[in-house]
């Protein structure tokens, strides 16, 4: 996967490039808005990671220009402005995701993976399958093996989101944003409780657990060890 990081702060940029390379990504670096625009426009990248405040051309205008030219490469905006309105502004400008600084690298990685999948991935399926767990998005039926599972509507959406990104790390904030549509940071482990309830329904009594907790990052649904 090819990644373009547009970030003017040398240290964070180097850290990001190194961290992404360590997980096996090809990461290029641009240190100002103009250079970033030129690279993003010419190169074939899977995801752009763009700092919002950049010299020469700010991140939002960069994305706007790219989108006007018909470039649809998914863009994730990094910003020290973490408030709801800034987020909305960023998404309106054509960004696909928004992550306020300071962030955990695990969070950034999870989001970048989701974005790259969205870009090149297959069309939305009507049935998700992970191991012997099956979720039918149309009839809202969930079954594990031969057992039919009864889920609350919200549990269904939670599982749906996890299964849509099966094999990928999904962070707590991603869940809160995508399943509940809240963008604030709860002071409590409210998501964990929902996950443990879901887990008790889909994994309890089965030999192979499917819903895994990824320490320091979030959760992942997958069959066995990758």
């Amino acid at each position, binding site marked *: 996967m090819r990644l373009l990081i547009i970030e003017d702060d040398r240290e964070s940029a180097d850290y990001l490039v190194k961290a992404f390379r360590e997980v096996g990504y090809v990461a290029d670096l641009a240190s100002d808005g103009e250079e970033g625009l030129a690279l993003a426009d010419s190169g074939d990248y899977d995801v752009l990671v763009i700092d919002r405040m950049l010299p020469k051309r700010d991140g939002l205008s960069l994305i706007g220009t790219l989108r006007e030219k018909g470039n649809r490469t998914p863009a994730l905006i990094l910003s020290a402005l*973490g*408030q*709801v*309105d800034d987020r*909305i502004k960023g998404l309106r400008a054509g960004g696909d995701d928004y992550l*306020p600084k*300071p962030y*955990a690298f695990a969070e950034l990685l999870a989001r970048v993976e989701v974005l790259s999948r969205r870009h090149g991935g297959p069309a939305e399926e009507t049935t998700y399958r992970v191991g012997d767990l099956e979720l039918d998005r149309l009839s809202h039926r969930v079954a594990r093996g031969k057992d039919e599972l009864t889920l609350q509507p*919200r549990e269904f959406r939670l599982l749906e989101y996890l299964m849509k990104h099966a094999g990928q790390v999904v962070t707590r904030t991603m869940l809160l944003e995508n399943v*509940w549509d*809240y*963008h*604030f*940071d*709860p*002071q*409590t*482990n*409210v998501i964990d*409780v*929902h996950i443990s*309830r879901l887990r008790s329904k889909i994994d309890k009594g089965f030999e192979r657990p499917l819903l895994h907790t990824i*320490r*320091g990052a979030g959760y992942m649904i997958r069959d066995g060890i990758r």
Partner: protein
Amino acid sequence: MTAFGKLVRTTAFRLTLVYLLLFALFAASLLGYFAWNTRRLITEQITTTVNAETGEISDIYGRRGLHGLVLTIENRALRPGANLYLVTTPTGQAVAGNVGALAPGVMATTGWSETAYRRLDEQDDTDHRALVRVTELPSGFRLLIGRDLEERRRLFGIVAQAAQWSVLIVVVLGLGGGVFVARRVLRRIDAMTGTTQRIMAGDLSGRLPVGRSGDELDRLAENLNAMLERIEALMMGLKEVSDNIAHDLKTPLTRLRNRAEEALAKSGNEAEYRTALERTIEESDGLIRTFNALLMIARAESGQARDNMDDFDAADVAQGIQELYEPLAEDDGMSLHVKTVPAPLHGNRELISQALANLVENAIKYGKPVAVAQPLGADAVAGGDARAILIEARRDGDQVLLSVSDHGPGIPPSDRKHAVERFVRLEASRTQPGSGLGLSLASAVATLHGGELRLGDAHPGLQATLAIPALPGAGDRLAAQTPDVPQKAA
């Protein structure tokens, strides 16, 4: 600037000068008009008398000849305060009258003229002025009748003097008044300036002196004092906040540093390093959360979040939050219920959700019933109900009320105002984790929407209510359609 210069520069003094000029001009023109009219009136009077006498004497001459004329003239000339008379031959020799000398050429032209003259009986050499009319009699003799102008001159003089005096008085009184008023104003302004300078120098407790007259300066001073009051309160708040920030951020930072140091000094294997690092990350996440909450409050308080408002139903928010927190409450041995009626409002949905979430988190954390046996009333909620938390969304008049009630120890009325402040964690909650910003944020969000956060008694327990102005219009219709039957939505 000298004291005089300051005085002259005051608005009061400058206004006085303008008025002074206006009044002086007015007085002068009034007296001028008066003088001119008086003069005209006197001249008219003289003309009339002289004309009448000229006619009379011409008549006498016509009837009684030169002899009669001379007799009449001599006779009349002797009367005290008499007019001026002179009769001359066609060659210019005086025949009769009381005029001794005349300006040359006066007798040569008939008609009106103003001339200098001297009476026959006068010893001094001073000239007087007179208004005279010369008529030629049928025989070629000339008759002069005139009147001394002294009277007119004296009257004019009186008026002129009156004009001078009145202008002088106007000027003196005006200047005096101006200085008086200007000094009075200046004294008060100086007092205000002195106070403001003291305040600028850092003494925020200073207040402007307010008089009892209730005039414009007093009102200005009152308003400035109110402003100072507000500024002082804000400054106090700011100071308190920065003290609290220093404490609440420094403490975890110190902890963070100590742990890193300890790990560096003592840890011998990777597992220990890992644990230390994980705890470091946890600790910094907590710090970031505190920062975010502070920023959010600052933002809500400064009104920036107003851009992102739309219309929505508070009932949906209440149900959404109930749904999100219900499992958490249950894990904690509590139960979370919701009771709503449609309550549309205009606002920032995200912020209101967060405010409500904070109230619910507080209720879960602190709303557990106290173990000690309680007096009557506690029995009513004993058992399962005592651990119930209720989220309510309803309309009350033109307000939408979003409330969270628990059956915990509550907050004593005296502490409620204090509890909303930033970083305040009441004694009872010191041991629990948390940033102490939850209620402040909820309060800031309510204020942003033009409402308030009310802390009340849930008998027993705490009822925290976000009271926010309802969406005008739409709500009345909805409320009318839905009679007071609460929807149990959980």
